[in-house]
């Protein structure tokens, strides 16, 4: 496939980079990323991936755009209120870059649908807001051998890590099991600075792009934390030994996907 003149111009700032080049840009155009959650993290991730020319982007979310979303979910606008988030996200991405095919899945992920959802994508982005979904995405990606970016944001803090099969710990290696319902603040009552989604969601997009291009060092084996009040990033090395992990270890005890109970405040 040769680039059109329009594409050469659109992607010129990528193509000029020695780590990307025409070859890398073609790779991106032939790649696919699934974003689970079209919210604070998923919105900026989806927009940067669409602008970058990721050929196929899937977006999964069951919600509709609500006024309280617009403080941070920059892929949606005031005129999108009440619209399905995946539809609103698709329209924004299509406007940004007609090269991108956007597949929408108007659903929350569960143990029944997730394996099917992730199977045709090269990389997965966890942009969900609750622990049951985060553990489900982890386990499904480990079982299917899919790389993914995990992230969480709350108040003035955010963190992320990247899982690539065989290259380091998974989310469950670090966090074992979801905390009991409402034990750890997760959602709307805790609050979050809107720009936090921009920082961490953009870093997730960056990890996806690096993985797809095969360049640089990923956050495998590390947890990157960001404290906006202290204006401090820390790249925390994670223990290497994954042998005892219940899902990615040598003798996994979790061999089927689990639907954990949602925290109260995540219910809609």
């Amino acid at each position, binding site marked *: 496939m040769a680039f059109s003149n329009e594409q050469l111009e659109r992607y010129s700032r990528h193509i000029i980079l020695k780590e990307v080049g025409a070859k890398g840009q073609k790779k991106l155009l032939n790649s696919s990323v699934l974003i689970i*959650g079209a*919210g*604070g*993290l*998923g919105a900026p991730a989806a927009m940067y991936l669409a602008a970058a020319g990721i050929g196929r982007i899937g977006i999964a979310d069951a*919600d509709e755009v609500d006024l309280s*979303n617009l403080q941070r*979910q920059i892929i949606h606008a005031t005129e999108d209120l009440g619209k399905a988030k995946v539809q609103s996200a698709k329209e924004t991405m299509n406007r940004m870059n007609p090269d991108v095919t956007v597949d929408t899945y108007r659903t929350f992920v569960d143990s029944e649908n997730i394996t099917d959802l992730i199977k045709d994508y090269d990389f997965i982005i*966890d*942009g*969900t*807001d*609750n*622990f049951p979904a*985060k553990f489900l995405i982890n386990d499904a990606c480990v079982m299917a051998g899919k790389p993914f970016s995990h*992230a*969480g*944001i*709350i108040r003035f*803090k*955010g*963190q992320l890590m990247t899982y690539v099969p065989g290259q380091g710990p998974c989310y469950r*290696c*670090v*966090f*074992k099991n979801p*905390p009991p319902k409402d*034990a*750890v*603040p*997760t*959602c709307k009552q*805790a609050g*979050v600075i809107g720009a936090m*989604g921009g920082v961490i969601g953009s870093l997730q997009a960056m990890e996806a792009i690096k993985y797809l291009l095969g360049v640089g060092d990923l956050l495998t084996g590390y*947890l990157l934390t960001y404290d906006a009040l202290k204006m401090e990033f*820390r790249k*925390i*090395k*994670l*223990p*290497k*030994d994954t042998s005892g992990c219940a899902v990615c270890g040598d003798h996994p005890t979790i061999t089927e996907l689990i639907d954990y109970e949602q*925290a109260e405040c995540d219910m809609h």
Partner: protein
Amino acid sequence: MKLTVAGEVKEVQDGITIAELIVQEKVETPEYVTVSVNDEFAKSENFQTQVLQDGDTVEFLYFMGGGQ
């Protein structure tokens, strides 16, 4: 003795356990924190008894659930 806790060198009393350090460091939601000592995960059932040594590197890893 000295420990490196979350990237900062700190003077702590000799023989401090992980559980005592958690209190001293005012760790949020201490029941759900993951602790690594010198690049190994500490088992939560050992927090009360596992004594830290001079020069140990300790990290606290926190659940962070938001995203939407």
